[in-house]
């Protein structure tokens, strides 16, 4: 142990000395990861914010235009407004459905049923699939003229005519959500299974001794104890769903028309197809703000629920 002057920042033990071999090694271990990650996350993020204030494009080196892109986007660009609305509705619907269904599956899976290993394996399959592939798979199922889904519904007498899964705008919006929920619900279930497994058995047993039935125990004991996990799932899924791009590309390509064009698909269109870097970046900044808002709200709730439990 060193006894001489402690390095700045080495408050706890006074162990490492500045510029001695060990201190250099510490940074040598941290900096490659840190610098590389910053180069690919926050630095491009700042560049995007800067680009969004210019009218740069492939053919135009770009001049500073202030908030003009945003002004145009939010007041005149109807496609963007629709896209923003659908992104929010899509994110809310798929996140909530995933959380509710995932919790249900997790509770079911924790009932000590047989074949748990097999069930886990099956559950992991949709999760392990590339989102684009999931989109392609469901496009086969949703095929309208004589796809399997329509056939089964007709046979079962649940519908009278062929459902226009992907060609009817309203229906396509729902079809995309179904695909997303199918793809991600097992991940949510896995998180909840871990959370349920770590709940204290004593509390639940005490509630049973007090005469609470299974439903009451779930509602008044399990659910409140799960609150941090629920916020965590809502946060992570919400932030992921709001950025959805690939499975929609695989399923509908944003169509019919612009019905399922989420913000990510729309900004892709502007930035990489039309090569309007400035305007595309402005849309990306809106996407960023949405992501940060979702993350912020649930991170705050998570933090609050954590401190409350700790007290």
């Amino acid at each position, binding site marked *: 142990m060193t006894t001489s002057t402690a390095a700045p920042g080495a408050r706890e033990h006074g162990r490492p000395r500045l510029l001695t071999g060990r201190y250099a090694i510490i940074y040598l271990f941290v900096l490659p990861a840190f610098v*590389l990650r910053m180069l690919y996350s926050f630095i491009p993020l700042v560049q995007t914010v800067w680009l969004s204030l210019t009218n740069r494009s492939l053919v135009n080196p770009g001049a500073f235009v202030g908030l003009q892109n945003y002004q145009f986007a939010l007041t005149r660009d109807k496609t963007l407004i629709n896209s923003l609305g659908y992104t929010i509705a899509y994110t809310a619907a798929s996140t909530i459905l995933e959380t509710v269904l995932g919790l249900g599956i997790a509770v079911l899976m924790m009932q000590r049923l047989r074949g748990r290993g097999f069930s886990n394996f099956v559950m992991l399959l949709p999760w392990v699939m590339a989102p684009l592939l999931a989109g392609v798979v469901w496009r*086969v199922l949703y*095929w309208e003229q004589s796809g399997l889904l329509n056939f089964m519904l007709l046979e079962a007498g649940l519908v009278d005519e062929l459902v226009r899964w992907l060609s009817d705008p309203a229906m396509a919006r729902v079809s995309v959500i179904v695909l997303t929920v199918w793809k991600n619900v097992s991940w949510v279930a896995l998180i909840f299974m871990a959370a349920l497994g770590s709940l204290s058995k004593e509390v639940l047993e005490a509630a049973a001794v007090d005469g609470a039935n299974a439903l009451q125990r779930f509602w008044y004991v399990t659910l409140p104890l799960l609150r941090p996990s629920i916020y965590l799932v809502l946060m992570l899924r919400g932030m992921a769903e709001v950025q959805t791009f690939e499975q929609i590309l695989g399923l509908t390509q944003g169509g019919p028309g612009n019905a399922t064009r989420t913000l990510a698909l729309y900004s892709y269109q502007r930035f990489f197809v039309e090569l309007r870097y400035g305007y595309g970046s402005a849309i990306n900044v809106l996407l960023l703000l949405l992501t940060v808002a979702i993350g912020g709200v649930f991170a705050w709730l998570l933090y609050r629920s954590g401190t409350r439990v700790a007290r």
Partner: protein
Amino acid sequence: MSAQVTQRARPVPFLTGERLLRLLQYALLLVTLVLLLFPIYYMFATSVMTLDEFLRVPPRIVPGSINFDNYPFMIRRWDYVPGLINTIMIAGLSALGATLLGGMAAYSFSRATFAGKALMYSLLVASIAVPAMVTLGPIFITYFDIGLLDTRHGIILVYLAGGLPLAVLVLFTYYNSVPRELDDAAAIDGCGWFGTLFRVILPIALPGAFVTFLLLLIAGWNEFLFAFVLTVGPEIRVLTLRLLEVPSGTNIMQVPYDLYAVGGVLVLLPLVPLLFRVQKQLVTGITFGAVKE
């Protein structure tokens, strides 16, 4: 799953018809699993149908005859093997790099005190929240300017950087679970920074590193957006991208659903034995990263 776990400590019966409840639970489980599995099953089924059989009305859930002819056709026409090798290289090298660099950073975060530690750790973790789409544009422009566009190392670097937060988080948790007393004991035995890492930390954290590597490998395997924008050349395009480049079959007017299904199977299949082998570790891996912060 060991049989002991399932049989020990059944829950207290809380309904008179406990058997009925069990039955209901199994029925629900079956429905859930069928719903989750069916689309994947149907992809397999479609892949062994001819296009004519697939297009037949009424459609079939179980193929009438199993026909593997589509596979050799796709493996040849779709250049599957070069695509596979390329995907393994890109996903594998980036996962390896991220596990290594992330593991090194996690070691410093876990075992050392230094200026800027809290800030660097927070920034690394917070960078998870930066949407890929938001970084893609500037990365594209920069890559275009410095000539990294459409190169293998360019895309590997993107995946590597993308995997770092997860690697740091998971391995940081693993390292922290190694008791500090072991460090002190190693220090008394004369182990320095590297000695402690190789003799104390790594033997215990190696399963964690393996899980991290696998999670990142799967993530790289399935990544699409960056590869879609940053690569053009057929020798660099990974398998997920090439799902968009499925060749047309004999009837060029008809969408080749059967070939899409074959492509899907060929992209998914290499992950399945991997998943079989490590599903339990993956489950803990996922939850480690997410629940334990």
